[in-house]
């Protein structure tokens, strides 16, 4: 899936540029995009470094245990195959909290941490586990209570009420979340997981 989409986007770009008689664009686009990808990746590296450092201090201070105890009853039914008290549950909880609050900066580092912990439970390291699929689905279709980026873009464009979209965005993201969780539950059952 990933490989096909990736190749399709690049090939479509090359073919379309060629049809338009502008193949030269491909060369410049590839390297300028690689450069901006590197900038983004280095930025993300800095953000991850900060959050990983902070969350380790928080873990040593006992703060994450408290959070895990608080959120475990909600997450357990969604992740029946994660052992009780496993650190992945805390990372998942932090990722969801960051998503709900619209803190995109914090969501990614916690999400990556969750994947790292989930991978420790994986008997076949090259294959995705049911818990990872549930987590990816939940992370990508997570109810958002504060869509900060969208509100900021609207404020910038001079909207009368930039925050007016918070309600419908919460409804739409909540519906998507419910849907993916139901489909995930159903695929887990039919594939015998």
């Amino acid at each position: 899936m990933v490989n096909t989409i990736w190749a399709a986007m690049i090939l479509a770009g090359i073919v379309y540029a060629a049809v338009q008689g502008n193949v030269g664009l491909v060369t410049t686009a590839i390297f300028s995009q690689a450069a901006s990808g590197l900038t983004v990746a280095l930025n993300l590296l800095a953000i991850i470094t900060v959050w990983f450092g902070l969350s380790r201090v928080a873990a040593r201070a006992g703060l994450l245990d408290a959070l895990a105890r608080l959120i475990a009853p909600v997450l357990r039914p969604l992740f029946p195959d994660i052992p009780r008290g496993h650190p992945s549950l805390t990372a998942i909880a932090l990722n969801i909290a960051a998503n709900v609050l619209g803190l995109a900066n914090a969501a990614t580092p916690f999400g990556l941490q969750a994947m790292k912990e989930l991978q420790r439970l994986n008997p076949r390291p090259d294959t995705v586990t049911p818990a990872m699929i549930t987590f990816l689905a939940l992370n990508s279709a997570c109810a958002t209570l504060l869509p900060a980026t969208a509100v900021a873009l609207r404020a910038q464009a001079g909207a009368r009420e930039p925050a007016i979209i918070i309600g419908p965005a919460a409804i739409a993201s909540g519906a998507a979340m419910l849907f993916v969780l139901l489909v995930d539950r159903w695929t887990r059952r039919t594939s015998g997981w």
Partner: protein
Amino acid sequence: MTPLSWTAWILPGLVAVTLVAGLRRRVPVYDEFVAGAAEGVRLGLRLIPLIIGIYIAVGLFRESGALAWVAQAAAPVLAYAGFPPEILPLMLIRPFSNAAAMGVIAELLQEHGPDSFVGLLASVMQGSSETTFYVATLYLGSVGIRRSLHAVHLCLLGDLVGYLAALWATSVLFLA
């Protein structure tokens, strides 16, 4: 006071609480921060090729004009579901790149006005969806998973449902 100004307190609050709790437990906070941060650096380095790969594909697709062309070709299908055709490039690019989606939205807001139906729908869609493909490949790639089974399909399906729900919620709340 913007409605979101209290969120400015979340991060400073978290950092302060973490440090105070750590010091009270006699945790060597700086040493632990550095140890955790080192893990972050190792992970961050693994992400660089993944991100550059996505950026090349998305950038080429958009800058060559292929995105606009595909959006135009798909317009009749999505118009059937009730989506305004202007919104299509956003739907197509949103799962792949946050930066590209923000650019598309800024253009839509400028062209149609932030309080037009297209402007409202674009904002709701941005606020209710994620860069699913990007995030899924990054997360799976970060731990070296090659066989992702139906994980990516499920995430993209969730996007589609989110878009339909956004269209419904926007129509009901703002067109009535």
